[in-house]
């Protein structure tokens, strides 16, 4: 039995406008697993991921990362957690005018002095690392191109490389393939699996398509209205569960 890398206990998030995005969510994440969170838009998936690396501040509850509560820490401690829990996004969130390499090097910002980083004084080691991970996601030859000249799938791979240069233990993926076409979708998901299996990085991903969930996830959590309604093996999700999560009348869409 692998150890728990993350333990979430009764996590709640209320936005300033009164929306209850998370209504007491509890679950464990085991080291090295590929956990997928599914649910409708607005079910709290994105909020949950953003609470885990403290891009959002949870209202109450605990997030134990390797045994330490990170739900209420502040300042440089938060930045330390973010270095360890990297993230990729639906819209990639790269810096458009910078080169691919420069974007990947951003993953080292948290390890550098502020002044040095502002002058772009990245160490030779950092550049080596950045190039290594660009090769790992199959776009080593694009290092000198401007990030906004790449296709969506390639941009997401740059984002993965940026996350990897942080040397993280956990990688959060917020709808990583939602703005990609089906073919590219699988390429990106395959790289995520590679990261998970070869580098042993724990992955927590929000996904929309159940066919992808069945193919890639080692475990699945379903959310509805800010609560967990299902937790278990992806193969256990049947039509009855599907209706419960997505509402009656919903039909599953397959992408191959």
């Amino acid at each position, binding site marked *: 039995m692998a150890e728990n890398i993350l333990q979430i206990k009764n996590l709640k998030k209320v936005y300033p406008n009164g929306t209850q995005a998370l209504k007491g969510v509890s679950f464990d994440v085991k080291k090295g697993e590929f956990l997928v969170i599914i649910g409708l838009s607005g079910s709290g998936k994105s909020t949950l991921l953003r609470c885990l*690396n403290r*891009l959002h501040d949870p209202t109450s509850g605990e997030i134990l990362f390797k045994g330490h509560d990170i739900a209420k820490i502040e300042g440089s401690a938060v*930045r*330390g*957690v*973010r*270095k360890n829990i*990297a*993230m990729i*996004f639906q*819209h*990639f*969130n*790269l*810096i*458009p*005018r*910078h080169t691919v390499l420069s974007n990947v090097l*951003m*993953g*080292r*910002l*948290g390890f550098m002095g*502020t002044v040095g*980083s*502002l002058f772009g004084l990245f160490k030779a080691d950092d550049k080596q690392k950045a190039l290594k991970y660009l090769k790992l996601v199959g776009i080593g030859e694009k290092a000198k191109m401007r990030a906004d000249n790449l296709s969506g799938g390639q941009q997401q791979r740059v*984002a993965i490389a*940026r*996350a990897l240069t*942080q040397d993280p233990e956990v990688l959060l993926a917020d709808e990583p393939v939602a703005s990609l076409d089906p073919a590219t979708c699988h390429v990106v998901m395959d790289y995520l699996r590679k990261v998970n299996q070869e580098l042993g990085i724990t992955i927590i991903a929000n996904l929309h398509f159940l066919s992808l969930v069945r193919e890639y996830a080692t475990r699945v959590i379903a959310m509805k209205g800010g609560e967990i309604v299902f937790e278990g093996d992806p193969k256990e999700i049947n039509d009855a569960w599907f209706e419960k999560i997505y509402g009656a009348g919903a039909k599953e869409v397959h992408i191959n």
Partner: protein
Amino acid sequence: MIASMTKRTIFDSILFAYFFCVAMLAIFAPSQAEMLNLGRNTLVFAIGLVLGAMISYGLNKASLKTLGELIFEPAYKKASAEEVSWTKQAWSYQLILFLVITFTVGSIMTKFSLTELLDEDGFAGAARLFKGLASPNMDLLPRAVLNIIETIFMAFMATALAIPIAFVLCFFCAKNIMKGPVGFAVYLILRTFLNVTRSIEALIWAIIFSVWVGIGPFAGMLALMIHSIASLAKQYSEIVETVNEGPIEGIMSTGATRLQTIWFAIVPQVVLPFISFTVYRWDINIRMATIIGLVGGGGIGTLLIQYQGQAMWPEVGTIILVIAFVVWFMDTASAYLREALK
């Protein structure tokens, strides 16, 4: 909802208070001394405000839409409103009344007079002036050119020195960066300070600085610089407020500090619009530097006021020609530059 009603009431009240004051003036025709009684005038205006608020409330209650309601009505109410002919609503009469009163009062205030405009002597004087301007004295050209170079450099220095200060300030007065109670307080104080600075014309700053550092181009440059800092900081911060949040989230998620996030996620997004606004500001500064010279800010403006004071129109004509050429050139050049930077 409450905010829109407050805005409506304030708008209608001020409008009515204005009508009320004009009516009082027309009825009582006060003497010059009475006109200067600020205390009583304020009281009359205040009465107008209160009456206006009551009338505004009453009219809207009777669903006769007032002008304030028309402007500040929230979108959801607009969508559900029935079509009513404008002749049956209060706002159209408010608007007509406003235009009629304002034109009447305005003509009296500006002493608008066709007889003076078409007066023969006056017309002959203007013709003499135009004749002088149309036959510029080219002997003055070298002097004018030297002075306009001084003006251009005055504008350049003012802009260049304002850039770094405005660049630093703009992040402190951008709402999307200054979050939290402390941040918001800093944002508010700085915004107010810059708005006040900006609302004082560069001309006034030039007068202040000409007393401070003496008449000359240095005073003019300082005046332009102060004004440029306030204007650029505001324009820069508005650009910062419209940046795409995605890269900010992306950089923050790597564990970067706030300064690193601003530098790597925001600055690349804003640098081109910043340059574009800065070029435009230089262009504006050259035009303003000319005017500032009139109050002792140095450069071509000072030359202009000297010859104008002696009614030497051919010389003034030369100066105006030089100014027009430079302003036209800078205007066109900056337009091309800004187009290319889009």
